[in-house]
């Protein structure tokens, strides 16, 4: 069996990790993921960097290196141009509504209309067996048992 590498950690690594704020970490991660998203969209469109730069009105070839490095601080206009060129969503300004699913447990007590007479209750028990599946319209009462 082949040796696997030892897992390594040190106190200095732990110390630095603890000093990084979650917000700062999230900001850097967001930059890198944005760069990756743009690069992936460019590749899936079959474009190279030159084509992307041309489509976004950029003249300096080194700009693409900055964009994809995951360190670049994009302006709104640059992101808008890239979004339009690649047909991807980088600036979603639509308000999102959170979908809430509420489950109700509903009990429906049904009686066929032709049985809805003043004395139907008296005859229900005896007739029930004659109409096991003939339900045309209902007199319905609902009980919301659980929300």
């Amino acid at each position, binding site marked *: 069996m082949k040796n696997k590498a030892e897992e390594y950690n040190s106190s200095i*690594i*732990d110390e630095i*990790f603890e000093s990084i704020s979650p917000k700062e970490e999230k900001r850097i991660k967001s930059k*890198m993921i944005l*760069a990756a998203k743009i690069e992936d969209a460019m590749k899936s469109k079959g474009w190279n960097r030159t084509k992307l730069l041309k489509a976004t009105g950029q003249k300096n070839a080194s700009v693409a290196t900055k964009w994809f490095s995951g360190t670049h601080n994009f302006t709104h206009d640059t992101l808008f141009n890239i979004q339009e060129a690649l047909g991807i969503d980088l600036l979603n300004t639509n308000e999102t509504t959170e979908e809430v699913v509420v489950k109700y447990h509903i009990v429906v007590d049904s009686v066929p209309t032709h049985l809805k007479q003043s004395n139907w209750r008296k005859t229900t028990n005896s007739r029930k067996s004659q109409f096991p599946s003939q339900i045309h319209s209902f007199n319905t009462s609902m009980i919301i048992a659980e929300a």
Partner: protein
Amino acid sequence: MKYKLVRISKFSGNEASIYTLLTENEQGEFQDSLFDTFINENTILYLSEIKNIFSRLTTIGNDTGARESFFKTKEGVPGDGVCALYDSPSKKLRLYCIRYGTELIILGGGGPKNVRALQDDKKLEAANYFLRWLSIKITECRQNGDLSFSTDFMDFEGDLILKDYEE
């Protein structure tokens, strides 16, 4: 002098494994890693850059993998995979690495780069040339069967101790 390949668990994740090397001391024990030395040498003057590097490595390990675009390539000789992790455009701290696809990187040393060519800075030159040697050594070890990649290319397997480096 001997070195041992180890996997830094804090950075490594589902997308990439981040390795470094432990160095052998005079008693024959493996101790501080090259990456620890890099941190210790630069924390006082470049703490924000070090934190930036930590966050970038964590994202590489867990979210994006070691994409080529995140690294300044061609820092060694053609094909050896020696590169530097990009830092913020206004920053100057260089961390040299060897990149094996998007799945695995080995962190070496580095330092602030205030010169045009790395050969103009003895410390950077030493860190860079060590990784060039390491890349050649790993290739040799893979060719003679002592070292290999795991089936998912995310880890090294075999004899993880590398020796005979001469400055």
